[in-house]
């Protein structure tokens, strides 16, 4: 199971990678993409949209199922990953890198402390 040490996680199988200036990338974990199977569509919010922690901000659809995306922290969307429009399979191929879903601005950076670290997430991401 691939769970990078440098990321934060949620129990909804999303990851968050902190960048500079309270910005962050968000995506779904390798465990999540593997459970969903072939991803055919990712619905991405508009830049400028704001979401509270736990709010649904998009959808990942695979051949088998549709799965909501939940915002891990209070956030404003800076941009979506435009590459996913034509190549949603990037989420399958590279869940933690080129398959990122949105770039956000953290509205309450201290919320990061409430997220899981790699070891904590590894407890959840078990078959």
């Amino acid at each position, binding site marked *: 199971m691939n769970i990078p040490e440098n990321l934060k996680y949620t129990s909804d199988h999303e990851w968050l990678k902190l960048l500079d200036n309270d910005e962050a990338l968000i995506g779904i974990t390798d465990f999540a993409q593997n459970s969903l199977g072939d991803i*055919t569509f990712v619905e991405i919010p508009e830049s400028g949209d704001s979401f509270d922690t736990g709010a649904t901000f998009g959808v990942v659809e695979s051949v088998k199922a549709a799965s909501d995306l939940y915002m891990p922290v209070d956030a404003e969307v800076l941009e979506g990953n435009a590459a996913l429009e034509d190549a949603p399979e990037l989420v399958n191929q590279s869940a933690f890198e080129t398959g990122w879903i949105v770039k956000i601005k953290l509205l309450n950076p201290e919320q990061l402390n409430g997220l899981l670290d790699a070891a904590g997430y590894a407890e959840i991401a078990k078959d």
Partner: protein
Amino acid sequence: MSELRTTPLTAFAIANGGRMVDFAGWNMPVQFESIVEEHKATRSAAGLFDVSHMGEARVEGLEATRFLDHVLTNDISGMSIGQALYSLMCYENGGVVDDLLVYKLGEESYLLCLNAANTEKDLEWLNTKRSGFDVSVANVSDSYALLALQGPKAFPILESIAPGALDGLKYYHFREGELAGAQCIVSRTGYTGEPGVEIFVSPEPAESLAKTLVAAGTDLGLRLAGLGSRDSLRLEAGYSLYGHEISETITPVQANLMWTVKLGKASDFIGKAALAEEKAAGPKKRIVFFKTGNRRIVRSGTLVLTGDREAGVVVSGTFSPELNEAIGSAWVDSDAANAQLSVDMRGKELQLFSTKPPFITLNPQSNHTTSGPSNST
């Protein structure tokens, strides 16, 4: 939860990384590595599917032909030994009990291949209806494993392990013979729109046969394939699936399957009057197939709209790897069948574009236009 049933190839699927799901009470692989990749491999090379969950019934007796012509919609008396035929089995009201393949083994001896989820119901139905006929109906499902080898490389792969096995074997015909040391029924049928065979074999040598086929086919691009790609392949090919395009309530008139219903055959059959009447009056509802121009899958159960009015419901929806867009089918009011249809996808209107199936150009060797598909689950 009750114990899932296993096929002679369940252990083989698990050992090869199959992702197992409960399908109609059977522990079946929905995929191995990827539904999309297994789909593409079957279109470009070959896919090997375990469909042993499907049921088999043996129908024999002095009046087997007359009995089957009574319970089935297609023309059984016109079959020759060694021929396979797609047929429906209907209720009096025209609803469908099951769709199935009939194999004529001998003059008054037939094998029926049934949907897994319907096998018990079908056997009960056949046994109820056989009174007055000199015929026996036996559930022989446990006597067979069933492998589907499908794709443009299916014949070369089979020929490489059994030279001559397909010589002179026409589409929708079968023969009994030996493959990898095992007695088999090799049938030129399938549910993918590709050339291919379905192979009935007794349970014991099934895994060994599967291994032999994999060994022979891997260099040609063969992949193990699960039920996920089986569904997307059949939908691209425009084939009906019981419980979706046909059901107890969706009749063959509505599903454009009247080519399997021989209203003019010599014998009366169950459902004939209702189907003749519905055909003459015109069905109130119809199955339409659609494209979306969008990658978003419109899933079974989604309401279909025309303008602000409810027009019906989506009955199948998947992603077409060949078209790179979502496709599906819907059961809609006939007066809306040619209107602009749409669905509401979480607040966004998505248009459905009616399309005459198949969605893809089928390989000519599958001869789709002259005969029907194999049955399904």
